[in-house]
């Protein structure tokens, strides 16, 4: 290939850097704001940088507003959803990849068709059913579907990956007397770690970021997860400040938002290469 002109290279990097600045600007402003004092927020124009970074803000929201509670709730709900997804989606993907039964493709197509179904269609009957069971204001409506293979996309992704494993591996293991359960967890899953990891990350993002379901099913303040907790805090602060959003304690709001966003960034930093490649592969092949 021909060499690039230095001016072109310069423009390329200038664009990349400018774009990157725009992309991180909202996050940067969130973190900077979280470190300011209330007077710095109220000042006109507000201070650009915190004169003296207020790490205390994090302690204030953590203990003062029992924010650790929302955080632990989010961890618990996400953890249970991930566990259920792995325990039911891996066997289901195995069954659809390796077991020969009649109408298997039909069952699989039915399962996949639910990807087209908007949550709005199922939420009203489900809410009614969960209310009848007395499950509203518990974690069960959020967790139980995940323990029944609720992540259909995960089943799809895992099956696609499992199918690339030669059947002779499984037959050899069966000859050695291994049960299907053992073959799945000792042989197939360890061979498919990139796909499993992608499913775990997707499930984490989906459950950690979800506002819709916790908003509908959780009511007690001590049960809500971070996105709902953040909105509760904002609504409460609005009452305290007489509804003027100019008076909002934005420094504390942004502290809460940072606590919600940081775990996502932390997970992403560790898995980003694999995860992005998983997304790209899913889109190009799908």
């Amino acid at each position, binding site marked *: *290939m021909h060499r690039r002109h230095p001016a072109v290279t310069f423009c*390329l*990097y200038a664009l*990349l850097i400018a774009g*990157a600045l725009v*992309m991180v600007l*909202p*996050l940067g*402003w*969130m973190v900077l704001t979280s470190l300011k004092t209330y007077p710095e927020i109220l000042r*006109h*124009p*507000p201070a650009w940088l915190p004169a003296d970074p207020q790490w205390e803000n994090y302690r204030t929201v953590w203990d003062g507003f029992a924010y650790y509670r929302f955080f632990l709730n989010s961890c618990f709900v996400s953890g249970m959803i991930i566990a259920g997804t792995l325990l*039911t*989606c891996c*066997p*289901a993907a195995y*069954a659809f990849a390796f*077991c020969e039964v009649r109408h298997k493709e039909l069952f699989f197509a039915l*399962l996949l068709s639910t990807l087209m*179904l*908007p*949550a*709005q*269609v*199922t*939420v*009203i*009957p*489900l*809410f009614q059913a969960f209310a009848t069971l007395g499950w509203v204001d518990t974690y069960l409506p959020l967790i139980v*579907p995940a323990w*029944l*293979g609720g992540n259909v996309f995960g*089943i799809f992704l895992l099956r696609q990956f499992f199918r690339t494993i030669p059947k002779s591996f499984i037959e050899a293991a069966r000859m050695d007397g291994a049960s299907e359960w053992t073959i*799945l967890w000792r042989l197939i899953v360890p061979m498919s770690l990139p796909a499993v990891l992608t499913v775990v990350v997707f499930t984490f*993002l989906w459950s950690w*970021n979800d*506002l*819709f379901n916790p*908003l509908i099913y959780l009511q007690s303040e001590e049960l809500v997860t*971070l*996105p709902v907790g*953040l*909105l509760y805090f*904002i*609504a409460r602060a609005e009452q305290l400040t007489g*509804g003027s*959003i*100019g008076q909002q304690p934005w420094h504390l*709001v942004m502290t809460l*938002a940072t606590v*919600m*966003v940081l775990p996502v*960034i932390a997970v*992403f930093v560790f898995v*980003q*290469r694999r995860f992005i490649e998983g997304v*790209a592969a899913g*889109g190009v092949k799908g």
Partner: protein
Amino acid sequence: MNTRRADRLCFWLFAGPALAGFLAFSLWPMLYSLWLSFCQYEVIAPPRFIGVQNYVYLFLHDPSFWASVRVTLAFTVVQVPLALIAALAFALLLHQPVKARGFWRALYFLPAILPQAAYAVIFGYIFQGDGGLLNQLLALGGIEGKAWTMSAGWALPVLIMMSLWAFGYPMVIFLAGLQAVPRELFEAAHIDGAGAWARFRHITLPLISPVILFNLVMGVIAALKVFDLAYAFSITQNIPPGGPARATLFYGLNLYQQAFGFFHMGLASAMAWLLFLFIMVVTAINFRISRRWVHYEN
């Protein structure tokens, strides 16, 4: 010892939970909500069959229904093309031989995976009329800002703008599509004297048209279902959900309000089914039209 019976047993044990979940959490609620959409159901009394009255009410008498349809369509028609153009532009940029490509790719991808509720809160603060970052920046240039988030004309554009940060998914899919384009084609075209634009227009675009279609379909479906962003925006701005003046009353938000704010469960079920049908029709149309512009190998 591997008989067909063993296979059947394994299948039902392994796929059983997922199939049970399909019946309990997808098929049954789907059919039940179809039935509810023909009922009056306000929770306090059992559902009562009323034929197509919910649908008639929505189409002829409910002003909030059409307001939410307008908001959602306006959002979709503007946001999806802009997001796809941004995604393709940055994918092309990252496709160039640059140093630390993985780092840049991760950085541009990141906003797509952050909670939309957090974005609504952060951007609500940035666009806020009273002391928001945007108005401060404008003031530096001597321009007087507005109360963007409180204006019926500006609230939706603000929401569109904040959703544009999340173009990471289509971007990495475009990037993978670009990487699959054979290099020899470009070199041949280069030798034939084709300029950069001609190469993009006549080689790159046709070859990545399948991923354009994929991103378009996914983008449209996601745009039609927006909820988190709009709900969190309303709370942040201390305005009734969908305000100001229904300017951000997204279809998903309107449906949520009807179902869980006013307990018009039958009406909300009808709205849900209209959304479902609309998504299927739009997706089918997208695929149908795509025959004219999507180019498949062989």
